[in-house]
């Protein structure tokens, strides 16, 4: 089914439930319970959509970064919009005491800090995100091990802070974890595109750090790693969750661009 229609139907279902609750008014505790449940679900949906705005702007930043000559103004504007979207989501979460979203908010604040070059701040946010991510709806509902993604971001921020050896060691460690850890392998089985996008992001960010920090001595190592990661996304894969075939086009482009810069 078309996901737009899926959400439209969902909203139509909500409206129907709202009407039915209104008609049943005065029917006591059970009505109240249903009411609270529907309210909670709608609030979760709203937070998910508010965070989706953050991601849309993040993709704009990534598209800009993937270009040979990024437009600095466009990139800065997109980063600012990422921040505004995150703050709006954070405000909603705080107002309605939706603490299950704290981890995701910190993740988003961490990404904004990374793009702004505020790596100490980013590390602080990622640590907070890791600490509370088992309360995240994606974990409680789907068992998605979000902490793996956050540990990978953290390794990049450590590198960009200038602790290249430590950051590289952490990056390698988390990459291995994606290949061996039980939670990671479960994710790989259930949702290969998410697993593949997360794991390939590790050498991509490490390569970006190597380029930005002019670590020429690491050229061979990073080229080998990028080529190894490329194999994980070489073949498009069908996924119901991601609607049809995922061809990892953006990731492939990122890897190819980095290889061109490094070589």
């Amino acid at each position, binding site marked *: 089914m*078309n*996901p*737009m229609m*899926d*959400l439209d139907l*969902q*909203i139509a*279902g*909500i*409206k129907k*439930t*709202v009407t039915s*609750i*209104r008609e049943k*008014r*005065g029917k006591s505790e059970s*009505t*109240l319970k249903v*009411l*609270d*449940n*529907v*309210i909670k*679900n*709608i*609030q*979760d*949906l*709203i937070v*998910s*959509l*508010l965070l*989706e*705005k953050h*991601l*849309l*702007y993040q*993709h*704009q930043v990534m598209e800009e970064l993937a270009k040979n000559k990024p437009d600095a103004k466009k990139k800065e504007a*997109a980063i600012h919009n990422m921040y505004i979207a995150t703050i709006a989501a954070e405000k909603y979460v705080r107002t309605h005491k939706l603490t299950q979203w704290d981890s995701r908010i910190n993740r988003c604040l961490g990404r904004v800090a990374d793009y702004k070059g505020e790596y100490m701040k980013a590390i602080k946010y990622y640590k907070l995100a890791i600490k509370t991510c088992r309360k995240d*709806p*994606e974990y409680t*509902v*789907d068992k998605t091990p979000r902490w793996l993604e956050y540990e990978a971001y953290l390794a990049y921020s450590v590198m960009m802070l200038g602790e290249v050896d430590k950051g590289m060691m952490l990056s390698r460690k988390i990459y291995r974890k994606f290949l061996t850890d039980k939670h990671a392998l479960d994710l790989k089985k259930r949702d290969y595109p998410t697993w593949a996008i997360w794991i390939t992001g590790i050498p991509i960010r490490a390569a970006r750090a190597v380029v930005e920090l002019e670590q020429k001595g690491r050229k061979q190592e990073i080229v080998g790693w990028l080529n190894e990661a490329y194999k994980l996304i070489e073949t498009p894969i069908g996924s119901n*969750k*991601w*609607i049809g075939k995922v061809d990892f086009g953006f990731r492939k482009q990122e890897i190819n661009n980095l290889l061109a810069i490094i070589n």
Partner: protein
Amino acid sequence: MIKSDAMVKRFAVSVREQKGDTIRKVKLVDHYIDELKGQLKILSKVRRKELK
């Protein structure tokens, strides 16, 4: 009632794949947020009355 996570993910992927610029995609997401906030407003009103 709502399988929010998987559904939002599918919705998100579909929005990202839509033709057009980011502004248009954000507007589309905003439309759904407004719809949901509208329903929430009605429910909160019903809840307040229920508690009286």
